[in-house]
């Protein structure tokens, strides 16, 4: 039954009393009660919820709904629970969620049972004029526990809208209220899950007058939370983005330690920078291989159709290497070394602020420290970029990319301290520049790595020869893309530099 207007039932409602009440005022026909089981999915970072979408499966059908619950946007037949986008049959539903979930895995967040009793309100000809559905929702894992939600759905019958309106008024007079809350949200609350709770973005607000060392610790604690939140997902190899978010948080931690020079004692900063450099390095191999494997479709599409299958052995090799590297990574995440680093870091972040600041900058208001850093970072990006305009060089472009990254981190860490509109515009131009530099850098690295991979396929075998040829074609295609990225750089840099020159963000 398609749903219509939802009325929330009082917590102490009893189905028998409700039906008796309905019978006293209306001619009704109660139908057989049935149970529907719903399983709800979203990614670890709530990508569907953040787009106001709900994905659930019921009776081998996958439904994509809007969070307002009344609209089914798309459906697909799905005999087994989906994990990745590729598990969902091609069609409207897959097309709609593809740009939202991308490479992320769908996690089962909630399984519930809806006990549904259809009731029809009849007219004098015993004709249905209003359809009702009494729904009592319980958690699938605890069917005997009290329901977490009960509601009555009212669905008008076409051509009998007056009767539906009259009945709706009757329900309102009885004190029942129309609800727009999705039972999915009520179910999540019942299992103590907070939708949107995780994000890889920094979402803390820092007071401008807060001591610099305390403000830095607030952000570092948030980053630690992200690192810890992703660790299990990495170990269980759920999808590639657990490791990606973990690495970004580690990199941000190192960047913040570098940017907050003299806020913490030099030996402390040096020690933790070394620790996090180690943590970052132990994830490099798996991430590098993940990137290639994630780009498989793109690489294949870059090749002429007749040689596309020749690249397959490369991906078989990459998968094998990834499996090896992953085992090493898990071992390191479970190691004493990593446990010690985590303990040291948590203890440091948990320390209360010392009454006497350990360094000169530690007790300064964070806003002053941030302003100075931003000025310096902006200057550095403009200088490096201007040099790049006169002479293009891979090494310098890399240095510029790093400078941009440092600036972006400072802007993101302390966004709550900066003027909103100006900062947003600056970030917009910076992001465009970073995308360009990132694409350039990725292509340089990909070419180098492909050159290395190619050595694995040198041999007398005919198939090896074909794979080598396919890699060679791929490298040429990547070179073309690199040239295109290089041509776009001057305009993007000019737009960013002009934003810096004309608007004093800091």
């Amino acid at each position, binding site marked *: 039954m398609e749903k219509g207007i939802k009325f929330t039932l009082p917590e102490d409602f009893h189905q028998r009393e409700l039906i008796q009440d309905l019978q006293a005022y209306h001619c009704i026909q109660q139908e057989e009660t049935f149970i529907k089981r719903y399983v709800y999915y979203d990614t670890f970072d709530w990508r569907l919820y953040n787009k106001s979408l709900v994905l659930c499966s019921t009776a081998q059908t996958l439904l994509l709904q809007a969070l307002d619950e009344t609209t089914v946007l798309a459906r697909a037949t799905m005999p087994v629970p989906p994990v990745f986008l590729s598990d969902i049959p091609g069609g409207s539903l897959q097309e709609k969620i593809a740009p939202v979930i991308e490479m992320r895995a769908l996690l089962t967040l909630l399984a519930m049972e809806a006990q549904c009793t259809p009731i029809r309100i009849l007219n004098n*000809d015993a004709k*249905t004029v209003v359809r009702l559905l009494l729904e009592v929702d319980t958690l699938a894992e605890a069917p005997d526990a009290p329901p977490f939600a009960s509601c009555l759905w009212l669905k008008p*019958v076409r051509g009998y809208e007056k009767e539906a309106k009259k009945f709706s008024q009757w329900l309102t007079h009885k004190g029942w209220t129309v609800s727009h809350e999705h039972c999915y949200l009520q179910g999540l609350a019942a299992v103590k899950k907070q939708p949107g709770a995780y994000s890889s973005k920094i979402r803390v607000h820092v007071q401008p007058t807060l001591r610099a060392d305390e403000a830095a610790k607030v952000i570092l604690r948030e980053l630690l939370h992200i690192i810890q939140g992703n660790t299990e997902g990495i170990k269980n190899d759920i999808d590639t983005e657990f490791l990606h978010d973990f690495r970004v948080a580690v990199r941000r931690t190192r960047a913040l330690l570098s940017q907050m020079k003299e806020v913490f004692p030099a030996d402390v900063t040096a020690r933790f920078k070394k620790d996090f450099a180690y943590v970052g390095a132990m994830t490099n191999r798996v991430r590098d291989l993940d990137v290639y494997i994630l780009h498989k479709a793109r690489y294949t599409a870059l090749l002429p159709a007749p040689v596309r299958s020749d690249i397959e052995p490369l991906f078989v090799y990459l998968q094998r290497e990834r499996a090896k590297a992953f085992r090493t990574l898990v071992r390191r995440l479970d190691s004493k070394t990593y446990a010690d680093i985590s303990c040291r870091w948590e203890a440091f972040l948990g320390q209360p602020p010392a009454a006497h600041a350990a360094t000169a900058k530690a007790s300064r208001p964070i806003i002053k420290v941030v302003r100075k850093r931003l000025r310096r970072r902006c200057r550095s990006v403009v200088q490096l970029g201007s040099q790049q305009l006169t002479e293009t060089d891979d090494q310098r472009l890399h240095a510029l990319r790093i400078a941009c990254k440092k600036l972006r981190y400072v802007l993101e860490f302390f966004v709550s301290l900066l003027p909103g509109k100006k900062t947003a515009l600056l970030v917009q131009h910076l992001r465009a520049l970073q995308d360009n530099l990132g694409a350039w850098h990725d292509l340089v690295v990909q070419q180098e790595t492909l050159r290395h991979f190619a050595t694995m396929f040198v041999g007398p075998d005919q198939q090896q020869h074909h794979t080598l040829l396919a890699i060679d074609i791929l490298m040429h295609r990547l070179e073309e893309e690199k040239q295109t990225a290089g041509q776009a750089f001057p305009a993007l840099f000019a737009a960013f530099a002009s934003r810096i020159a004309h608007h004093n963000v800091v």
Partner: protein
Amino acid sequence: MPTLAIYHTKGGVGKTATAVNLAYLAAQSGAHTLLCDLDPQSSATFYYRVKPKLTSKAEAFIKGGKHIEGNIKGTDYEHLDLLPGSLSHRHLALALAQVKRSKQRLREVLEPLQGAYAYIILDCPPTLTLVAENILLAADYILVPMVPTTLSLRAYQQLCAFCAKKHYDQQKMLAFFSMVEKGKKLHRDTMDHMFKQCSELLHTTIPYVTEIEKMGLMRAPVPASAPNSPAAQAYRHLWHEVQDRVQQA
């Protein structure tokens, strides 16, 4: 999505019973279905407990748009809507004769509804007027129920001859036997003969049984009121066979 007309020039062959039951089965499969009662007797409307529209005019019907959409009623069953019949439909042929493109008018009237419904099923009156020509052009498939008797078959042959003369696509005619009494030798012989003669006939036969006659009393389709009865089974078979033909096309 296909429009199925249940049509025969002869009356009393089980057209309305077929339309009512197939529309119900289509809706039960989850497909949004519209049953259009084009018969002035409005029996399909009665079966679905909807009050026929007494005030509407045939001229308004053939204008379509809001005159049609505003009259559609939901039935007792999910996914099944009904365009009620009207006594004024007896003037449809006259009204059609007054307008341009008089033979295509029904098709034009139904066209805007195609997006909203997976199936449109027409319960047609027994006629060979302009209304019939509209039906023959508007429907993707014409289901022709035939009682295995001489007169009914003769009427079917006349219909085929009419279609041939007017160059209507005879491929869309799906004839089947209805109100079959297997105890009668005449029925058995007639069917044997026809199945040998016409390979395109549907294989399902609808029996002449009390459950179908009781539809007037129950005011419900047979698969809803007597789901395990032979009549309900027969209509289910017929619906599957029709669906197969539709999917093959």
